[in-house]
């Protein structure tokens, strides 16, 4: 009687191979993709369980924070990052600005048939590195494949869970007149890096995305003991939209000063060229913090002492205003409203 022969599974061709429909079928090809690509790079004890979901330990005392984010950025690779690290940073930041320590991430991949496995490997490696650096684990995931033309390479959706201790926590409704408005660095870098890369614009520029995990910076700010009343990462819609959201949520106005807002010269130049306003351009590694006037000095100092906050600045003050206007004194000496973003300035930025 013949014994069953030992399986030989030809390894994934990570050099020339491409995603095909079988990679989402639930069969062996999918198992192989998960094993050789996702599990290998993102490896951790929960993912290793290999079950339909991750069984996680009871979290440390406090309250849970959960946030999810979909990533459809085009192009997938851009100066300073790619959709992989962006999908980790985006979710880590959404959890961290709630004042929480991000712990676990779930990731869903929608792959387009024909997508090069080499690119997928680059993206997953980049995710793994970003997760390691941010101190979070990708504990569970999902992969689907759609026919060619039904997606654009790869879309990634991530969900993050973190823990925030009991007590006051940052929230968009806690800004009060007199509070100081701080930003952790220059604005518009991510959006303009994407814009400059998009082939049809065809211009060359040294602008690099600022995509980064902010949980380390936020931990440093928490360590000052100051009450971080509002924390936000000004992503789509930029600083202007973030400030308007906070003004509305808190029922206050704001007065900011154009001259105090950090914008890198190449970003300012690219915005000028394209008729964009850097205040509305997306960031992926910047923090807006609103703190009481008395805390402003030490929080700003802590920001500047952190590698992600060396260009931090105080840009304005929360005011009393029934209309919830965000206003700005212009460098020119006039005054204007900084309104909500209208329409879609830069589609598929993150």
């Amino acid at each position, binding site marked *: 009687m013949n014994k069953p022969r030992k399986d030989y599974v030809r390894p994934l061709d990570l050099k020339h191979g491409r995603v095909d429909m079988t990679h989402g079928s639930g069969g062996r090809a999918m198992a192989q993709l998960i094993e050789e690509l996702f599990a290998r790079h993102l490896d951790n004890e929960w993912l290793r369980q290999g079950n339909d979901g991750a069984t996680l330990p009871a979290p440390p005392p406090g309250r849970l924070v959960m946030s999810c984010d979909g990533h459809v950025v085009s192009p997938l690779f851009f100066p300073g990052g790619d959709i992989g690290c962006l999908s980790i940073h985006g979710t880590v930041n959404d959890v961290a600005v709630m004042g929480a320590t991000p712990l676990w991430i779930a990731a869903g991949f929608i792959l387009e048939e024909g997508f090069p496995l080499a690119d997928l490997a680059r993206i997953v490696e980049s995710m793994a590195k970003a997760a390691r650096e941010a101190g979070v684990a990708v504990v569970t995931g999902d992969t689907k494949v759609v026919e060619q033309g039904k997606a654009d390479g790869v879309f990634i959706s991530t969900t993050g869970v973190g823990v925030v201790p009991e007590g006051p926590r940052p929230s968009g409704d806690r800004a009060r007149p007199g509070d100081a408005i701080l930003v952790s660095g220059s604005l518009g870098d991510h959006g303009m890096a994407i814009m400059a890369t998009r082939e*049809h614009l065809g211009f060359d520029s040294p602008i690099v995305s600022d995509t980064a995990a902010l949980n380390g910076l936020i931990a440093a700010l928490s360590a000052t003991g100051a009450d971080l009343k509002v924390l936000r990462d000004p992503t789509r819609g930029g600083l202007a939209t973030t400030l308007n959201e906070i003004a509305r949520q808190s029922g206050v106005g704001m007065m900011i000063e154009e001259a105090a807002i950090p914008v890198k010269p190449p970003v300012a130049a690219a915005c000028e060229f394209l008729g964009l306003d850097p205040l509305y351009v997306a960031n992926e590694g910047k923090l807006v913090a609103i703190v009481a006037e008395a805390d402003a000095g030490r929080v700003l100092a802590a920001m500047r002492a952190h590698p992600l906050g060396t260009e931090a600045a105080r840009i304005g003050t929360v005011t009393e205003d*029934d209309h919830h206007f965000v206003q700005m004194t212009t460098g*020119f*000496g*006039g005054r*204007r409203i900084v309104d909500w973003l209208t329409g879609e300035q830069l589609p598929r930025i993150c």
Partner: protein
Amino acid sequence: MKFVDEFRDGTLAKGLASAISREANPGRRYSFMEFCGGHTHAISRYGVSDLLPANIRLVHGPGCPVCVLPVGRIDMAIRLALEHRVILCTYGDTLRVPASDGLSLMKAKARGGDIRMVYSTADALKVARENPDRQVVFLAIGFETTTPPTAVVLKQAKAEALANFSVLCCHVLTPSAIVTILESPEVRQWGTVPLDGFIGPAHVSTIIGSRPYENFAEEYRKPVVIAGFEPLDVMQAVLMLVRQVNDGRAEVENEFTRAVTREGNRKAQDLVAEVFELRREFEWRGLNVVPYSALRIRNAYAPWDAERRFPVGYRSVPDHKACDCGAILRGVKEPRDCKVFGTVCTPENPIGSCMVSSEGACAAYYTYGRYKDAA
């Protein structure tokens, strides 16, 4: 940013502001129309009016290409996309202009129209080359500044015998619009729009030069100062206009000497003349039908004229009843005089075209200036 920051310098602005205050006669009022949306935008964005004395009023003019485009023209583009199934390419702001039946190009796109935003005419031509099996139409809008690039692609399309590309030409002319305003009863007979002078176009003048304004400066006794689009340019132009008014002069002066000459860009003018000819009449939003105020494609380029290639006749459509865009474009009303401004008409849901483009008077006032109404 070199060559930009210098023209936005707050200290220089203060100096100019005090010169204007010193020279403006406190016993009279000055009303200057900034023709161009580019100026309107700069004035609102930098808060230029905050630096001017109270007796100087800036009146917004009709020089916003998206704003003056009548509904009927957008309807034509929508029909091309939805009924004739062409790939319709156009500049970004045009996509949001409200058209008939609650549509806009953006909404027509959501209904399956292949409508693409391009940054240049060359991009539109590229789309045509890349889609040889599809008809590609470029919706060409704008004043004299954007006309030469359209002429270039028409010449290229002809040279390449590109059979699937055509242009829906909606290019309009600045001088005829200014004359229409000066001839309007509000300005001539009723005096409801006092106009003491014009801040003349910046980019348009780089093409046509300063000479075309000379006739009406003299005939209508209105000073014109051609000015750049930076806030200091505007301040300097206001000072020059105040001086002309005080001296009783009505001349064409050029503040924008770094880009504009009296003759303009002859090469561009020749190019435009080769490809386009005057239209007998064209409907403008706000100004109605203005004779010889727009361009059409010459017979030599007829095969690339979308109006001749596709059976999409023009049908005039009245503006929304509640919308005051027409009066605002003529300087008769200010945005806040319109009863739908900021209520049902906002940048997210524009009723009229002036709320669409960032160069439109309503959008500029809504986006940057409405804190003044709250004070």
